[in-house]
């Protein structure tokens, strides 16, 4: 029983990390309808961002967010203007190939800039473990979970209580309708892309406190985030969180009680099974067409 609780705790903590990673994708895909296959590489770049800031200023990576968030927002808006804007009306396959090309650019660009060595950040709490009732929880994960909770709370309240947030929801639900009532769709899209990149920045920073970064780390994140977002239901933030938790806890349980080599197999099968029962994901709205 003790071990079971430990597994669940570990699963939930990993789950919040996953949720944090998938949030940016959930927003960009949910609002813009953009299929971003370079998402993992965006996270990789954000991790490098966190690394660079703490390298040059010696700050805690989380404090570095004050610098990174504005930059990410501007980058998101810029990226939308330059690239995403042209893509969102193109067919899906164009999204996939273009973002795939983008991921090449990011990966190999990072390889040239940072070489291929592994980089990481050490913080005062890197080694600290919270020990209670025979359960072990490490601080980097606790802080990551706290960051996730704060970010999610901010996001949900932003989407619910501000005019821009409401406009984002309106656009993501019905683009044409939103246009008709006078919402500047392109502006909203640009803001959503900026917010998406901010989420990615937060996840990158929280990851760098307990992971090492190297140029090809994003390849594996990419599929994971996609599975989570689709499992939870597109455009639904609670869905993304639930999806992340399911996958992380399942990985833990399968890894312990069954086979460590089959953890990914378990969640792929779980994903397929859930989609067979609920074709739009757990929290997905049925039959919505872009």
């Amino acid at each position, binding site marked *: 029983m003790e071990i079971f609780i430990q597994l669940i705790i570990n699963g939930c903590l990993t789950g919040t990390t996953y949720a944090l990673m998938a949030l940016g994708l959930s927003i960009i895909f949910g609002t813009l309808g953009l299929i971003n296959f370079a998402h993992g590489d965006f996270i990789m770049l954000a991790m490098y961002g966190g690394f660079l800031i703490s390298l040059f200023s010696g700050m805690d990576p989380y404090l570095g967010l004050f610098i990174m968030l504005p930059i990410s927002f501007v980058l998101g808006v810029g990226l939308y203007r330059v690239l995403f804007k042209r893509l969102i009306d193109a067919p899906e396959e164009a999204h996939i190939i273009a973002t795939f090309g983008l991921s090449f650019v990011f990966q190999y660009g990072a*390889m040239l800039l940072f070489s291929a*060595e592994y980089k990481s950040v050490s913080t005062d709490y890197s080694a600290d473990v919270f020990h209670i009732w025979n359960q072990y929880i490490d601080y980097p994960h606790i802080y990551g979970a706290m960051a996730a909770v704060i970010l999610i709370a901010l996001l949900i309240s932003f989407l619910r209580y501000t005019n821009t947030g409401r406009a984002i929801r309106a656009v993501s639900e019905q683009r044409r309708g939103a246009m008709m009532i006078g919402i500047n769709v392109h502006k909203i899209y640009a803001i959503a892309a900026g917010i998406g990149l901010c989420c990615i920045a937060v996840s990158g920073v929280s990851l760098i406190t*307990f992971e090492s970064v*190297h140029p090809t780390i994003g390849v594996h994140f990419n599929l994971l985030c996609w599975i989570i977002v689709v499992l939870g239901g597109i455009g639904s933030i609670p869905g993304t969180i639930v999806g992340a938790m399911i996958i992380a806890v399942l990985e833990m349980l399968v*890894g*312990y009680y069954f086979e460590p080599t089959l953890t990914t197999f378990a969640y792929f099968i779980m994903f397929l099974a859930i989609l067979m029962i609920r074709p739009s994901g757990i929290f997905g709205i049925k039959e919505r067409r872009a």
Partner: protein
Amino acid sequence: MKRAFTNYVVITMVCLFILPFGSFAMADAGSKTVKIGVILPLTGPQAPIGREVLRGIEVAADMVNDMGGIWNKQKISLVTGDAANSESARTETERLITVEKVKLLIGVYSSSLAFIVHPIADKYNVVFWETNAIADRLRQMGHENTYFFGPMASGWGSQAADCVVELIAPKLKKDPKELKIAVVYQGTEWGKSLSHDGFVKRANELGLNIVIDAPYDPNTMDFSSLILKIKRTNPDIVHTQNYLDDGYRLFRDARKNGLNPKVWIADGCPWAYVDEAFQKFGDDMNYVLDLNQVAGGNIWSLSPTTQSQYREFLDRYTKKYNVKSVAASSDVAVGFTSAIALFEHVLPAAGSLDPKKIAEVVNDLSLPATSTARPGGIKFAPQSDPVQAGQNIRAGVVARQIFNKKYYTVWPKDSAEIEAIFPAPPFGKRAFDDKNLEMLIK
């Protein structure tokens, strides 16, 4: 009109097709350089390590060139091929051999890629100098001109098992058969052939007690479940074999879940980047036993010339690539030691890149452990050997214990620098005072 258009389209397409073909520059033969092909993964997921090996080889070539080159002052020029995946491994090898006309190839680091690259080199009768592909089966494929400078999986694995019996058990003051050993490795060709087919097999022969034999998916983000599974068996020794990513995660999760084995054996490369590891784990890195094919820490036991050569390599490496770390990672050293052995001991004696002459030289080669920074020495098995054809039979591994960002060779006995210290204290209490070390230095 229609016909004219059709012709136009066909011509355009053919032109488009031919264009990239024509732009592969043909090699100019007869210049005063010796062309040597280097085939390594330089892009894609294996690039981090492939690039490190390449750096080592580049430094070795620079050193030889600055000393005046080989054979009547000819300089070595390296031509690289990028073996990122199976097709590119095949086409790039073919390109190096047929377009660039190289007569000798160094590479390819990964066993999986070696299975594809070696047959092609063999087809053209090109000498292949393998730096570190370890899979045993590679030695049994009947490629006459392929030489393996690094150790083979079964040899490496069984040496690791011997290390448990010879070094660790006496230190823990226990009968080796009483020790509980957990074996964890990534579920890849590399992991399986070393840990499962090498270490576990030998351990069973020696009658050691393997409590868990667990391959894992290297993409796992959090290893807590595996660690808890290992923790339940309460092992004295954890033998891990992994790359950087999974290695760091495994160690991180062991620490976080309070798995405190008396000995943590790291077989493979993560702890080779010792600065990065200390950056991540701080003092908790102390006492880790790093089993590897490169002895950075045993410089003092080498012959004076090899010693100064290795120092020069470290110096040049840090300068050339602007690396801050003092110790080169094991992959750079693997690239360097393999290449320098070839440039120094084989090529000058052979006088040309002719496979027959190289084979003669390699067969007669017999160098003691003091003549290379790779542990063991150099002596190749004949190509007629059914099990280890072309294998450097003296290639071995050394065990180094890590204390405060430094490696100290502890095994095998004749090249040991200090006495190993086991059991390791639990995580969090692993700070180590360098003064204690001075007493241990032999």
